[in-house]
């Protein structure tokens, strides 16, 4: 885990260096252009990021027990149970209909 964190830190430092190099000329432009350019640079810099967790190290993450929602019907059903009785809604990843008025 320590090795993964060190690799991740090195990748993030690499991306930060890329961004610092181009930040100065961009600062003179409008904020919207700066934000757009920044977002583009982050995406491009991503290509140079070396994945700190290699594909062959993802066996644990690929284990079904690491899935957020292993059973879609059950997850959607429980969301409906809560949505019909609480004031809160959303950000749980399911979309559907129904009233639950009674």
């Amino acid at each position, binding site marked *: *885990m320590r090795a*993964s*964190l060190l690799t*991740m830190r090195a990748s993030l430092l690499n991306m930060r260096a890329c961004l610092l190099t181009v930040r100065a000329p961009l600062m003179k432009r409008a904020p919207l252009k700066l934000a757009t350019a920044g977002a583009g640079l982050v*995406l491009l810099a*991503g*290509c140079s*990021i*070396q*994945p*700190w*967790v290699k*594909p062959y*190290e*993802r066996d*644990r*993450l690929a*284990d079904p*027990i*690491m899935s*957020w929602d292993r*059973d*879609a*019907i*059950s997850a959607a*059903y*429980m969301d409906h*149970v*809560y949505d*019909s*009785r*609480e*004031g*809160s*809604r*959303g*950000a*749980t*990843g399911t*979309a*559907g*209909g*129904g*009233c639950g*008025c*009674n």
Partner: protein
Amino acid sequence: MCAAGAAVLPDDRADIFWSSYRGGGMDITGESVLVRKKFSEQFAVEANYFVDKVSGASVDVLSNASVIKDERKQKSLSVEYIHDKTLYNLSYTNSTERDYISNTTHFSLSQDMFGDLTTVNLGFTDSRNRVGENDGTANTPIITWLGHSESRSYQAGLSQILTRNLIVGSTLEVITDQGFLSNPYRSIRYVDAVPLGYSLGTQVYPNTHTSTAVETRAKYYLPWRAAASVSYRYYSDTWDVRGNTIELDYVQPFSNKFIVEGRVRHYSQNHASFYSDLFDQANQQNFEARDQNLAAQTNNTIDGKVTWAFAPQGFLLFKRATVSFDVSRIQFKYGDFRNIKAYNDTPAGGNYPVGGEPLYAFDAMVYQVYLSMFF
């Protein structure tokens, strides 16, 4: 985008699902079938049919109406297409009750990036609803259609692999509604010079509603092959409801045959700005509600689930098959919603003063059993 391996679609599967909810005067059973099939490495279709049968009614409905029997049928069809590292999803859902019809269209895309360590999701949902009221007549109820509502939802999510054992994610969802948003089965009550001390009146809701919810979650793979996760959701809306949800989950497999899962969830919210259990007079303010969903409340869930892989090596056409048993207990407690059905249940045998009835609370049990077959 960055060049790397392409994403893949999940396995084909078929699920048969049964559920039961009992609590707060409600008895609801649900049955569902889901089939998911890949037609190529890039294209999959999922179909789901869900039937909810409702009998009984919640306490605030019973204060003004009789027991209602209803059935909700929900049909959905979803298409997934994958191109390189982008997954596109388009789905349509129709939900029909005697007194409520909802049609929902959803589109989302999911993009893997940064060496597949990061997944970004963007989604949009459009829902059109028709709202009616059932007069409660047992065999041939009369439905009065009251209005329409529209809902649009915008979702953005990020999932990030941090280490070989840890994955985190966050989702933001903004939902806007407009139209007839009230619940026709619930009534306000206000102080009145009648023998009971109060009268019931019609709820009046605003015609618009916008909510924002943010959920953050993390899942960790433990050294002995188990997983623990935590999630937190903050909710706020233009009706001044603020909600907090926290959930902890633990998954423990035993050999390749059993997976045991435990979950606890805590939820709390304050009441909406126009909610009151008892208004001082009729037409006290522009908007008035006494819907228990908009009252201050907390609820706690404890859930246990066992999944048994009874055919881990497969049978007939299936690669493997599992059956799952899930039991949840939910305890609801309300901070300013009173049980007016218990007005004459004081320990001394007398009546409670108006507005002094006991606060409402109830426990609900939720049972789920489902068979999942992967092929």
